[in-house]
């Protein structure tokens, strides 16, 4: 049976030329293009993180100059946020899986999808080349008037890079929205959609509504700097804090662009390895949407120390607490999904557990920052740094790894090696906590962020953190090695190694070029593991996962 499958063309072996990759309009191949590019970005950003952590081993800052240090953390932030995290799950797993999960042959606009990758590559190249050659020292937040009038480094080019990359994200979001609305297979109603799709739908709304605002904002920075427009320059009568409002109007929802797809992944992985329906499907779907919507009204919580009115601050604070509720609801539902399950512990599940732990810490420490009086102390300290790394690295990347392992058999047709994968998950989890937990303590003890030199009493936290970072770095290299290894040496996966429900598992691995030979007609509920189990027992097919 497997030999006959191997002869069938799939999206990987259908064509072999370089042009067939670079000019492909197949969403699966574009997902692979994105996967390769963002992996590269991740390691560039990671290299900078390594440089930062090494430098902070000692309080005296004796490895590099302040100027170099500032450029290192700026490059780290820009690469990780704009060129890695924003496209991470949506552009790779999302691109690959959205059409498969809804029974479509491709995204609605395949050429636009390819264009979005090229736009991304152009933007990222400009951004990286400019920051590496000239260097940019404004921090990824590009705060005015430092960025517009005082920085002596090259602000314009990286800003243009961010501007361009934004369009890639807009195009991806637009494509997902139209695809999810218009391309669902017959019978696949909204409430039969996998929660991964709901999460990507919510993400796309954020991408489409928020990204244009950052685009116009960095454009204004470029014009301010290039043509002396003075919109954000207090010397020209402008208001530098207005920039922060516009910036965070995008950059706070941007966090949801990172975490909502991560939540989507977790909502697939936990039911599959619990062999159980997801608990509270409607509530998880609704919470994705409410996070996306409420998330647009909380940006002001980044500005509690700026001269915004006291009442505005209070409004932003209360809404920020409100947006914590749907995240809590999701977490409780995931935990409840395991109740009376039939739980196994393959690598995706281990990564999902890691996500749960880290996301819990990240989310709960957000309450400290939302509490107004407390935020005045911890704002712009390492407490904030730790908090958002728990969400964006602990949460989003753990889920990304969970998803990558979960769908790796589908994407490549090969199984990854289970032992190293579990080991990597544990190493990453331990390394991550050792890196970032001490930063909470350093932050509350009063260590400001973006500090090249720091008072010696904070050294203990930084030494712990750097030690953790070396473990974490090693942990992140492991999947790169064994996943590449599996491409050649991995066991054949077969269509559905996990016994998972969902349309993507009903076709070959890797999928054929046009996904579905005949359009599927859906007349079942999502996550119907009890029914899947009955069917499997009826067909008496040997279970692939138990091999």
């Amino acid at each position, binding site marked *: 049976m497997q030999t006959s499958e191997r002869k069938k063309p799939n999206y990987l072996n259908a064509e072999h030329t370089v042009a067939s990759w670079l000019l492909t309009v197949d969403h699966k191949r574009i997902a692979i293009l994105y996967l390769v590019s963002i992996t590269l970005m991740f390691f560039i950003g990671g290299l900078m993180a390594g440089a930062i952590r090494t430098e902070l081993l000692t309080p005296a800052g004796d490895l590099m100059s*302040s*100027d170099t240090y500032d450029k290192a953390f700026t490059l780290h932030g820009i690469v990780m946020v704009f060129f890695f995290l924003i496209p991470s799950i949506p552009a790779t797993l999302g691109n690959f899986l959205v059409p498969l999960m809804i029974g479509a042959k491709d995204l609605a606009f395949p050429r636009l999808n390819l264009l979005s990758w090229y736009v991304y590559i152009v933007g990222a190249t400009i951004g990286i080349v400019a920051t590496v050659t000239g260097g940019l020292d*404004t921090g990824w937040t590009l705060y005015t008037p430092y960025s517009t009038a005082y920085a002596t480094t090259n602000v314009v080019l990286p800003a243009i890079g961010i501007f361009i990359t934004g369009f890639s994200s807009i195009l991806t979001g637009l494509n997902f929205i139209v695809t999810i609305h218009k391309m669902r297979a017959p019978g696949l109603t909204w409430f039969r959609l996998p929660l991964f799709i709901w999460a990507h739908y919510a993400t796309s709304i954020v991408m489409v509504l928020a990204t244009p605002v950052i685009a116009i904002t960095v454009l204004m920075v470029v014009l301010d700097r290039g043509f002396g427009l003075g919109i954000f320059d207090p010397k020209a009568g402008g208001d530098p804090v207005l920039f922060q409002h516009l910036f965070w109007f995008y950059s706070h929802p941007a966090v949801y662009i990172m975490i909502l797809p991560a939540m989507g992944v977790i909502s697939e992985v936990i039911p599959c390895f619990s062999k159980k329906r997801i608990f509270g499907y409607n509530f998880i779907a609704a919470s994705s949407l409410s996070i996306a919507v409420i998330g647009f009204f909380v940006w002001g919580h980044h500005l509690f120390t700026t001269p915004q009115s006291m009442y505005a601050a209070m409004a932003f604070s209360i809404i920020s607490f409100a947006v914590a509720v749907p995240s809590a*609801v999701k977490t409780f539902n995931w935990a409840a999904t395991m109740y*009376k399950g039939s739980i196994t512990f393959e690598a995706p599940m281990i990564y999902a557990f890691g996500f749960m732990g880290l996301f819990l810490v990240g989310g709960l420490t957000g309450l*400290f920052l939302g509490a107004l009086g407390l*935020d*005045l102390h911890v704002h712009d300290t390492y407490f904030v740094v730790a908090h958002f790394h728990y969400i964006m690295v602990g949460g989003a990347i753990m889920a990304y790894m969970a998803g990558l392992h979960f769908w790796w058999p589908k994407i490549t047709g090969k199984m990854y090696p289970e032992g190293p994968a579990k080991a990597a998950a544990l190493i990453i989890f331990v390394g991550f906590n050792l890196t970032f937990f001490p930063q909470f303590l350093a932050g509350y003890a009063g260590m400001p962020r973006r500090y*090249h030199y720091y008072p010696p009493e904070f050294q203990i936290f930084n030494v712990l953190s750097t030690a953790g970072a070396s473990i974490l770095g090693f942990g992140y290299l492991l999947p790169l090695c064994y996943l590449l290894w599996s491409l050649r040496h991995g066991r054949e996966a077969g269509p559905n190694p996990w016994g998972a429900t969902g349309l993507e598992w009903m076709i070959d691995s890797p999928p054929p070029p046009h996904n579905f030979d005949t359009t599927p007609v859906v007349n079942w509920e999502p996550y119907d593991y009890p029914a899947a189990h009955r069917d499997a027992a009826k067909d008496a097919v040997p279970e692939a996962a138990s091999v």
Partner: protein
Amino acid sequence: MLLSLSLFPPQASTNAAEVDALYLFLVALCSLTAFGVIAAMTFFAIRYRRRPGNEVGADIHGSTVLEIIWTAIPFVILMFVFAWGASLYFKLSRPPEDAMEVFVVGRQWMWKIQHMEGRREINTLHVPLGKPVKLTMTSEDVIHAFYVPAFRVKADVVPGRYTTLWFQPTQTGEFHLFCAEYCGTEHSRMGGSIIVMQPAEYEAWLAAAPGGGGLPSGGSASLTPVQLGKKLFTEKACATCHLPAPGGVGPVLVGIYGQQVELASGATVKVDEAYIRESILTPLAKVVKGFPPAMPTFGGQLTEEQVMSLIAYVKSLSDGAGSGAAVPAAPAASTPATLAPAN
């Protein structure tokens, strides 16, 4: 013990203990929640692991009752945390009436501090124990943030406007002062210390070197901000139009601080530091009703310290009759022709 000491900055202001209380409450609340969820998941993972006889999960869709419970309970708790945080913030952002005032100007990469008694210092702020201190701050270049971990306070210092911050020290000693908003290459070196002294020592320190602090500033160093403002008021010919009694080209400034004035546009505005500052630097943005838009702009002609001194002087005119800071008579010779419109 050593470790536990370094987990908190010194608790050196009246607010510090309250901030720490909220922090500790949240630490307890969050630990409880996290351990609860993790314990439940661990229990489920062990209890419901795949075993012979447990090949598939139970057929459960969900529970609306549970969803309502775990939506409502967190919501109520979170609103409580909000209220606690907000009331603390309310307190932290409203300086007491009797707070002593200090001017702070940030620039890349130093803090310039001006005491009302005339003494100036750089990167160090001496304050007396037990007395509320209100800082009025601005920046000459980019955004900075004034951060004293031991007092649990922080406020951005923004060019083109004033921000304030207050604290009441409860411990003598030397505490870190940091710039918390990234401001360029030497950001991490833009700091210094807050030195809290016994009130008597502080008085002695103030008196010891009037105008000291090693800041050469063109002969005006020995003056208090009010004196300097008074001097500038004459030098810049403000006194020509702003007479002590009605009849001048500009509004009378005696007693104006803290009042509501009606503008030419019909709106009203409260005369505070921000409005006085704006009226000096861009006088035509908000002209008081009944006066010609005749005032020349002083934007770019005054340093931030000079503007602050002028404000201090204008404020002193509203301190009551006994302040001794009457508006000086206009020196007729220096009346610029452009400033004498027929009235």
